């Protein structure tokens, strides 16, 4: 049996974050194979395990019709077999079948979705059919085309004959209109893009974020304008990504706004070709979202044909784009997505209007730093297969080359400080230093002894798993400083005494965001003195102190979890210590070790 593979040159291009239309066509073919394999397994498993349902739903007839249609209209069948709706349904259906031994109306409704895909082929090819499809909540879905309303519950016979579509009910045969797909078609700089907007196909409800199921006329106009605008940016400045998108992205799943003005976007390994997203605030944000999600889609497909990670779960670690600890697979996906995003900003920053140039440069410097760090963590994880290691090394090689690209100083400072704050906050929240190591340091401290270098720098730690939180006000504002400096200043002005600001910031945060670092550091030290658990204050203090001003400050910025754990332990025995005093004491021990 022949297997899918990728020429080495394609794999290297993909590892570097590119891969144009020819490479993407290979990935699309692999996804079609995956869908055929899954579809056939649904039929075979249904026949083997639920023979009565298989017979009652006429699944064998539906499969036979599909094989017939493939001879009549091979390109239409190929397109439908590649639909993300089909992949998501087949994966979900097989997993659900695997969890039950009993035939049920839900199982039957699930299985008849196979017939709805065959009906879509029949309608598109203009071929007559007679298929049983389940109506769910008064709707009968034809994936990618739309849905039909019906008062009939359960199974409905759908007939297509001589161009007419009819539903057979107890009351007789009812003609129904053929649903028309909602699509956006655009063309720019000689490159076209056609994508369906699908918020209603049940299988695409796999993104764990509410969908915009009914897209009204005015909303559709907004989506159309936004996609057209994003396409202009991509077709002109990001040609390779645009070509890849035009080949592989078939469906946009509109998501409901999240209420915070953020763009929420997602992909699923089961739904190759679909990008789910809220409507971004501007064309540029959607262009970036498309590039980001394209990276996920490409990597999902590569992982379908070549294992890059072993099957072990792997240790949780820091991912610069998430506030919760992540396993190696998620880190690989994030690093790869941000490799693409870095490439996007590397070019895009030179095409920004003057008032947004800062944003472009800051995004570039921030993302290149974060993606490289994640790539290096992956290489050290021990979870990559030999092919995975080669893949990630190539990604790292590109990112390392981009570290030399010049970036204006202000953009560097703002981009990297937002990145550093995120890392410090993560460490303060999730890194737990071994209690034995902390206890040893407490003993040294109370007895007035100097710690050893091993006590200071090699204290064992572990990562605490945690749920994801939403973005924090300080984090959002540090990003807003370069994304929209005018809005940032407006918000900060409102935070002045007597202003109408409501950003939920502490006094130290306000000082930090205004650039008054010494006031911020004093404020965070005071906060740490007052509260026993204060990860925000520790992260803020690390950001506010100048790493070049002394060994205490430098040590604190490198070892927030250790200094904060020691501080808490000393507090626990009824004593008090200043955070920087402690950091200086630890730094003394560490530096003594280095001079020996």
């Amino acid at each position, binding site marked *: 049996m*022949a297997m899918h593979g990728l020429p080495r040159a394609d794999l290297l291009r993909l590892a570097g974050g590119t891969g144009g239309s020819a490479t993407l066509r290979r990935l699309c073919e692999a996804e079609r*194979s995956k869908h*055929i394999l899954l579809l056939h397994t649904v039929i075979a498993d249904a026949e083997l395990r639920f023979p009565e349902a298989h017979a009652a739903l006429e699944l064998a007839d539906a499969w036979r019709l599909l094989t017939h249609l*493939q001879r009549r209209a091979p390109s239409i069948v190929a397109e439908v077999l590649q639909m993300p709706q089909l992949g998501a349904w087949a994966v979900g259906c097989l997993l659900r079948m695997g969890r039950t031994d009993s035939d049920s109306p839900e199982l039957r409704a699930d299985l008849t979705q196979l017939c709805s895909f065959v009906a879509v082929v029949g309608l598109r090819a203009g071929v007559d059919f007679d298929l049983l499809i389940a109506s769910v909540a008064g709707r009968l879905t034809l994936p990618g085309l739309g849905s039909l309303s019906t008062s009939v519950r359960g199974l409905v016979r759908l007939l297509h004959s001589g161009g007419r579509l009819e539903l057979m009910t107890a009351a007789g045969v009812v003609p129904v209109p053929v649903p028309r797909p909602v699509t956006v078609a655009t063309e720019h700089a000689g490159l076209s893009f056609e994508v369906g907007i699908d918020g209603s196909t049940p299988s695409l409800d796999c993104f764990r974020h509410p969908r915009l199921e009914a897209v009204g006329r005015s909303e559709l106009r907004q989506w159309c304008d936004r996609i057209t605008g994003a396409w202009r940016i991509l077709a002109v400045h990001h040609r390779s990504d645009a070509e890849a998108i035009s080949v592989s992205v078939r469906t946009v799943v509109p998501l409901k706004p999240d209420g915070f003005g953020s763009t*929420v976007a997602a992909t699923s390994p089961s739904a190759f070709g679909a990008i789910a997203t809220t409507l971004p605030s501007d064309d540029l944000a959607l262009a970036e979202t498309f590039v980001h999600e394209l990276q996920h889609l490409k990597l999902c497909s590569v*992982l379908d*044909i070549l294992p890059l990670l072993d099957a072990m779960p792997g240790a949780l670690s820091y991912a610069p*784009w998430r506030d919760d600890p992540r396993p190696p697979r998620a880190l690989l996906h994030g690093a790869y997505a941000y490799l693409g995003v870095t490439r996007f900003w590397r070019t895009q920053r030179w095409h920004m209007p003057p008032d947004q140039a800062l944003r472009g440069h800051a995004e570039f410097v921030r993302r290149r730093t974060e993606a490289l760090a994640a790539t290096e963590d992956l290489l050290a994880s021990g979870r990559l297969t030999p092919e995975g290691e080669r893949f990630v090394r190539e990604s790292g090689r590109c990112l390392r080359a981009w570290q030399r690209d010049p970036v204006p100083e202000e953009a560097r400072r703002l981009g990297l400080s937002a990145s550093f704050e995120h890392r410090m906050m993560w460490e303060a929240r999730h890194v737990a230093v071994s209690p034995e190591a902390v206890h040893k340091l407490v003993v040294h401290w109370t007895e007035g002894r100097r710690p050893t270098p091993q006590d200071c720098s090699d204290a064992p730690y572990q990562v605490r798993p945690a749920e994801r939180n939403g973005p924090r006000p300080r984090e959002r504002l540090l990003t807003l400083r370069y994304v929209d400096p005018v809005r940032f200043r407006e918000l900060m002005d409102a935070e002045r005494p007597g202003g109408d600001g409501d950003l939920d910031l502490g006094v130290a945060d306000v000082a930090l965001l205004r650039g008054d670092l010494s006031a911020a550091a004093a404020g965070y030290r005071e906060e740490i003195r007052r509260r026993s658990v204060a990860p925000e204050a520790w992260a803020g203090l690390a950001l506010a102190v100048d790493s070049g001003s002394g060994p205490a400050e430098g040590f604190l910025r490198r070892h927030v979890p250790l200094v904060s754990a020691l501080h808490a332990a000393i507090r626990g025995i009824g004593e008090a210590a200043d955070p920087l005093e402690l950091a200086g004491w630890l730094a003394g021990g560490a530096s003594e070790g280095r001079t020996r």
Partner: protein
Amino acid sequence: MEQPEEVQRWILPNLADLQLSQIDDLPSLGLRASVCLLLRRLEDEQEPLYSFNSNI
């Protein structure tokens, strides 16, 4: 001297251009093994791949 081709573990059978009517002629155990591998991985990966772009 030419380097030997490195071993790469391709895991997905190529059915892209197969006539669907011929799929039952393929070795069923091989197909089943591929599906099991695929489903085991996809079941572990049911969490969607999210991205958030924060604007205030």
